[in-house]
């Protein structure tokens, strides 16, 4: 995590050429609100000016839990030409892509059309974001790949957006957020999984989102840290729902990526699900195999924010239980809790595992040669 102001820390790196990496969680931002307007019908531009987005939360602007930093982003990530962090391609290249030798960067736009109560607006905004990702980012830097953002609460229009983009090499995954109106295994979301499976695209589930539910099973907590730590609990509940509703059984070629919610919880969740499934499987006959098998075969995790044990090598036990072939390195650029590529893995990792962790797993999953 990085909240200090560190000017040009990357440029000062002693290594001239670094090993190539994939960064599977980069957040591109709009420099201005109007930057999206060329991709939106006049009706929606007007709507946004008059009514705003009307989300499943109370604030017109900004999040209900104030972030730790402006825009939850690094203070050294403001582009020199102005605009919020993450809004400039040239500065992203200078600060992230070039110095870290990022060979594949997966864009996960936030603050899109997701989590909005007006589902028509949601679909229009998502489609606009997808056009904008091509125009501003992926068409200008071939290292970058986009995620198809979909109106999450309306499965049918979301599936239509996926089919519209299927085969377009600018996109490497479908993007959902973890907190929705219902747990992600519910039927209303199945058209999304069906379309993604048909298109051969993994579905990424990024932390955050608004679905109107209290963000703990015991009501609304007080602090930003509770929301942040709680993303791993939301992700676990979402994944449990996907398994127990039979989504993996029904869509056996579907691949899911758990993004920015840690991975240390995964073995425990899988063990617990297996144990209760042995007892209660008669309630869910559509779940035909032990839950851990679906998870092992169909789920990947991005690494940031990596769990940080006092004895760092303890993490190797957890990675071994998950599988070195299932982790995808991510920085979360430009957010403040960014993980620095050179510092996340303790010593003692084999060359093969290191390569898989930083690059190989991502290239294979996202079909990048």
């Amino acid at each position, binding site marked *: 995590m990085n909240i200090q102001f560190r000017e040009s820390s990357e440029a000062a790196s002693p290594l001239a050429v670094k090993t190539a990496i994939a960064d599977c969680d980069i957040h591109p931002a709009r420099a201005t609100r109007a930057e999206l307007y060329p991709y939106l019908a006049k009706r929606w531009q007007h709507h946004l000016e008059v009514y705003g987005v009307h989300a499943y939360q109370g604030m017109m602007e900004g999040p209900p839990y104030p972030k730790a930093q402006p825009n939850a982003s690094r203070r050294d990530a403001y582009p020199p030409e102005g605009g919020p962090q993450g809004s400039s391609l040239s500065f992203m290249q200078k600060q992230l892509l070039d110095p870290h030798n990022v060979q594949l960067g997966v864009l996960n736009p936030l603050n899109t059309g997701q989590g909005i109560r007006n589902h028509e607006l949601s679909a229009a905004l998502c489609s606009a974001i997808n056009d904008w990702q091509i125009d501003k980012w992926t068409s200008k830097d071939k290292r970058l790949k986009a995620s198809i953002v979909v109106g999450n609460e309306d499965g049918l229009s979301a599936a239509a957006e996926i089919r519209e983009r299927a085969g377009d090499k600018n996109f490497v995954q479908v993007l959902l957020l973890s907190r929705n109106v219902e747990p992600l295994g519910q039927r209303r979301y199945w058209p999304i999984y069906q379309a993604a499976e048909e298109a051969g695209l993994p579905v990424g589930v990024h932390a955050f989102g608004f679905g109107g539910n209290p963000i703990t099973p015991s009501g609304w907590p007080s602090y930003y840290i509770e929301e942040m730590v709680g993303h791993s609990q939301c992700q676990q509940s979402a994944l449990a729902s996907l398994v127990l509703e039979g989504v993996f059984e029904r869509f056996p070629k579907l691949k899911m990526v758990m993004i920015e919610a840690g991975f240390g919880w995964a073995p425990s*969740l899988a063990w617990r699900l297996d144990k209760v499934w042995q007892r*209660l499987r008669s309630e869910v006959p559509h779940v035909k195999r032990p839950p851990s098998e679906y998870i092992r075969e169909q789920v990947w995790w991005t690494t940031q924010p990596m769990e940080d044990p006092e004895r760092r090598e303890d993490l190797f036990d957890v990675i071994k239980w998950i599988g070195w072939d299932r982790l995808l390195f991510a920085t979360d650029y430009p957010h403040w809790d960014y993980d620095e590529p050179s510092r996340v893995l303790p010593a003692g990792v084999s060359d093969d595992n290191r390569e898989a962790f930083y690059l190989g797993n991502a290239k294979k999953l996202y079909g990048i040669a």
Partner: protein
Amino acid sequence: MASLIAGGVDCDVHPAVPHLTSLLPYLNDYWRDQVTTRGMVDLISQSYPQNSPITARPDWRPGSGKPGESLADMQRHVLDPFQLSHAICNPLYGVQMVFSEDLQAAFCRALNEWLTKEWLDRDQRLRGSIVIPTQSVEKAVAEIERCAADRRFVQVLMLVMADTPLGKRALWPIYEAAERLDLPIGIHAGSAYHNPPTAVGWGSYHIEDYAGQAQAFQTQLTSLIVEGVFAKYPRLKMVMLESGVSWISPFLWRLHKFWRGVRMETPWVDRAPLEIVRSNIRFSLQPFDAPPDEATLIRLFDHMQSDELVLFSTDYPHWQFDGQEALPAGLTPDLVRKIMIDNPHATYPRLT
């Protein structure tokens, strides 16, 4: 399998209230009349459907009635064969689901009276947990103080999914009373169902609710720690009951990392979350949610970096293990002694 030793403390057994009518003798005239006139029905929580396989082990399931409603069965199934010195009774009757704080308070008081008369008075190995009406902090504190006069009540019981996160300041008088009266707070699996049972909404299945208990415990630990409960009440112990244990270390690694990153938001948290857990938080053994292999168990306990966190439990009559295999394979004799005897006694000052 590790060998059980005699004289252990079972920190989580569940005596069942046979029916709401069983509480009538312990209600005053007004509430007795309310229950009968309005035709109130038995308060069975969705957390434990009576016939669900997890609610009772097949060989612990009685021919009729609810699993856990007979003292003779409990003696025959756990108290005698496990050679226990004590067992702590945690009633899971659905009183927390009631929305009226007055009704909830009347039911809690009746439940605690029922436990005293029908269980604690009838077997001297048994100890009790005080069930409290958390919707009214004032009434909850009054019930704690009333019951605490009886030293056989060794803890206060709350559900892990309540009306608000348990660290919220409004609840702190409960913790003040508990600390003052040498009562740990036991937080047990289960929901009042006043909020959806997951942080992402209502799932479809009982299995989902049950698996999701672990996530509820995780968010509560975050709440309790970052709100500053243990900075304010440093002697207070809390016991996570039926929480699972394999998630503890990875969860704390994450919480610790974020605490380091944003501790300016909660400056009153005066110690690292890992340290707070090691000094103030305990976990019951069952359900032991790790695979049955020794190598994994050894790594999990090593990750905890403490042999004081786990307290023995059978979770009677819930079906978490078969036969006498309450202890997972791979525990050393020293750790068995800590888990079964030393740790419970260090946690519950009233356990004598």
